[in-house]
Every structure is written in structure tokens, then in C-alpha cells.
């Protein structure tokens, strides 16, 4: 037995064979000191584990009454396996992209390099899938708020930066008008996705994580669809009609969270 085993046993809570432990401690003053201190700490924690805490009775009957409300479509949807929930939410985005690409393709696509278009759409789609994957992970892991805020900031920043990205002359000098139309188009197309996010959410009240991830996914989805549809590259138009959708969804989710708290 060596010093590292003594330390590991303390950290892991494992009991050491008495003979081997005593033999090592007899020849190692450092471990002896460490072991004595740890024993004292262990005793303190063991006492703490037996502390009486104020606990009220919680009967299974009370829980069963709560469980009885778990009926209907939403209860069925939110209890589906997470991989299925992820697929069912991502599918409408994919379908909307395909449909948008086929039927409402923007007029100036041919003037841009194909690589640029593919790259831009890929960035959007990967970020959307990432947001959904985080939201519908099998068991949401505790993660720092920065993780969610990072994705949200990305979702708000990319469409904003797109407003200042190099564009064709005609596109850049277009009038900023029509922003409201684009805003409405993006909002209408992402509304079903928002409803499905709500339906699949297992929390009764949206968590901060859900607010951040849902707003990010919806903002990006709306902008992805508008990228396929709108040829107006005027920065004012893009900022007001496209990029603002992420912010709008963030405000809506935050309001829903605030209302549910009240």
C-alpha cells in the first residue's frame, strides 16, 4: 500500500484493509497525519448525515393525484423518447427548408458562389440542430448558463452580421421596405416549431435553459428560411425584418416564463 492509495481511499470513501493500512501508517508520518485529520472530518460528516431535517410527509396517493393529470396529447408527446422528440421538432425545419428552397427560392441565388450558400445554410442548420439536441438531450445535464447564453448570442449575432455581409450591388441597394412582411413570414413559418417545442417540453414552466435554447433555435430557423426566400440585402431591412426575429422569440419565451412564474 502506498500514499496514493491512502489518499484515494479517503476521497472515494472506500475502507482499507486494517493490517495493510496500519503497516503503512506506522512508517509514514505524512499519511498518519493526513489519515487522522481525515478521520476527524469523516466523523463530522457522518454526524451531519444523521442530522434531523424538517421533512413533511409525502404520500404516494398525493403524487398519484398529480399523475392523474398526465393525460392527453401533450402528456403523450412530452413522454416520447428524447431522440424522437428531437427528430419530430427538427423535421418541420428540414421540410420548410426543402419547401422554401424549391418553391420560394430567392431570385439572386445564382449570383452567389454555391460554396457560400451551402456554407451559410450549413452553419444555420448545424446551429439549429445543436440547440434542439441540447434542449432534447436524454437527461439535461447541469451546465453553466454561459453554455446556453453562448448559443443564444450566436443565434442573435449571425443574422445581424449577415446584414453587413458582402452582397450583390442590386441586393445591397434595395429599399429597406418590406421588413414587416419578412418579419411576419418568418414568424408564421416558425410558429408551428414554437408550438411543438412547447408541446414536447417536459417542464411545466419553461426553464431558463428552454428560453435560451428555444429562442436561439427559432431565431435561427426563421433566418434560415428568410435566407432562402428574401433577396433584399439592405442592412436596415435585414436587421429589422430578419435578425429581429431572434430577439422577438426571446422576448416571447421570456414572457411565457414570467407569466408561468406568476
Amino acid at each position, binding site marked *: 500500500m502506498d500514499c496514493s492509495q491512502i489518499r484515494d*481511499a*479517503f*476521497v*472515494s*470513501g472506500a*475502507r*482499507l484493509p*486494517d493490517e495493510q*493500512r496500519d503497516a503503512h501508517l506506522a512508517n509514514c508520518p505524512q499519511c498518519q497525519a493526513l*489519515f*487522522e*485529520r*481525515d*478521520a*476527524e*472530518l*469523516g*466523523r*463530522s*460528516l*457522518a*454526524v*451531519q*448525515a*444523521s*442530522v*434531523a*431535517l*424538517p*421533512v*413533511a410527509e*409525502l404520500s*404516494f396517493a*398525493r*403524487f398519484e393525484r*398529480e*399523475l392523474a393529470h*398526465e393525460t392527453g396529447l401533450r*402528456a403523450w408527446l*412530452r*413522454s*416520447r*423518447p*428524447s431522440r424522437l422528440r428531437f427528430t419530430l421538432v427538427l423535421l418541420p425545419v428540414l421540410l420548410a427548408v426543402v419547401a422554401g428552397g424549391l418553391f420560394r427560392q430567392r431570385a439572386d441565388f445564382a449570383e452567389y458562389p454555391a460554396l457560400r450558400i451551402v456554407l451559410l445554410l450549413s452553419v444555420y442548420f448545424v446551429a439549429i440542430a445543436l440547440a434542439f439536441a441540447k434542449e432534447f438531450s*436524454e*437527461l*439535461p*445535464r*447541469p*451546465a453553466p448558463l454561459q453554455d446556453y447564453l453562448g448559443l443564444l448570442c450566436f443565434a442573435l449575432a449571425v443574422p445581424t452580421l449577415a446584414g453587413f455581409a458582402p452582397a450583390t450591388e442590386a441586393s445591397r441597394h434595395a429599399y429597406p421596405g418590406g421588413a414587416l412582411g419578412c418579419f411576419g413570414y418568418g414568424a408564421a413559418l416558425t410558429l408551428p416549431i414554437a408550438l411543438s417545442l412547447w408541446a414536447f417540453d*417536459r*417542464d*411545466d*414552466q419553461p*426553464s*431558463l*435553459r428552454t428560453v435560451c435554447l428555444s429562442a436561439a433555435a427559432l431565431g435561427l430557423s426563421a433566418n434560415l428560411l428568410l435566407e432562402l426566400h428574401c433577396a433584399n440585402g439592405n442592412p436596415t431591412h435585414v436587421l429589422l425584418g430578419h435578425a429581429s426575429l431572434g430577439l422577438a422569440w426571446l422576448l416571447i419565451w421570456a414572457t411565457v416564463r414570467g407569466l408561468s*412564474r406568476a
Partner: protein
Amino acid sequence: MAAYIAGDKAAFRELFQRYTPLLQRAMARDLRSPEEANDLVQQTFLHLHRSRLDFQPGRKLKPWIFTIALNLKREYFRRSKRRHETSLDDDRVAEPFEGPRGQERSDASRETARALLSLPPEQREVIELHWFGGLSFPEVAEAVGSTVAAVKVRAHRGYVALRARLGEVAPDPDSVHAGKPSVAESK
């Protein structure tokens, strides 16, 4: 859990009865009101019910339940915009069962509770899950979504801080064990 997923409703009652005391204690350490603690325990089981189809057979249920409970507790504090309701000056921090040396044990226990509360949350969390929740370090790692090595480092730092703080309390030589008592031994 496998029996419940297969449709055996009585199995869920058994799970409820087995894990409720552990979860109640885990919640009660941070919440002032036992009713609020019970609400969170109830929500934990409700989430367990909703996520039952995500549970893979052969997986350990205890870390799974504790992950749900920890997430709900974090969200509760985030929602109510406060971290922990128990303050360092709160007289309720620790009320140990009376033993043969009741007052001494009581003082030491209060001191330990205060020392625990003074730890950074990530250190306190792993120590409480291991010592009070009865989770092994691999289970703690699974519950908090980290690696075993990282969890051990967090625990070790917590122990060092606890030792430093508890060093001011006079030791009780008669009750010092020859080795660190295991969680099972302490119950």
C-alpha cells in the same frame, strides 16, 4: 424501473417509497419549507415518469433521479432568484438527533453544517451527494454530468476547505474512528 416501463404500476410505488426519503433530505438541506421541498420531490417523480422511455435497461437509476432532482432544485433557485435559503447565521442549519453526548454532537454538527454552507456550490454538491445521498463517486459524476476525476478533485478541494474550517472545533478523541466511517456505517 424496467418493471414500470413494462407497465407494472406497482413498481413505481416501490420506487417512490424507496427514493422519497433520500430526495426529501437532499431538498430539505437547501429549502426552508418542507412543503416546497416536497413539491420539488413530487416534480422529480413526475419528470421521472415523463422521461421513463429514455431510461436504458441496465443503467443505474439513482444518479438518474438525482440528476433530475438537482436540475429542478437549480431551476427553483434560479426562478426564485435566490441561491440557498439557509443562511450561515440560521439556527436551523443543523439539529442532530440527541446522542449520549448530545450538546457536544449538536455543536459539532452545527459547525459542520455551517462549514458545508460556506463551500462553493460545486464542491458542496459532490460532498453532499456522496455522504448524504449515498452515491458512489462514479454515480456522483453521472448525476452532475462530469468525470469521476473532476468530481474527486472537487470533493478533495471541499475536504481541504472543510478541514481548515473545522480545525477550529475541538476534536472529540473518544469518538474518532480508526478510519473514515463509510456512509453505510454512519446510518
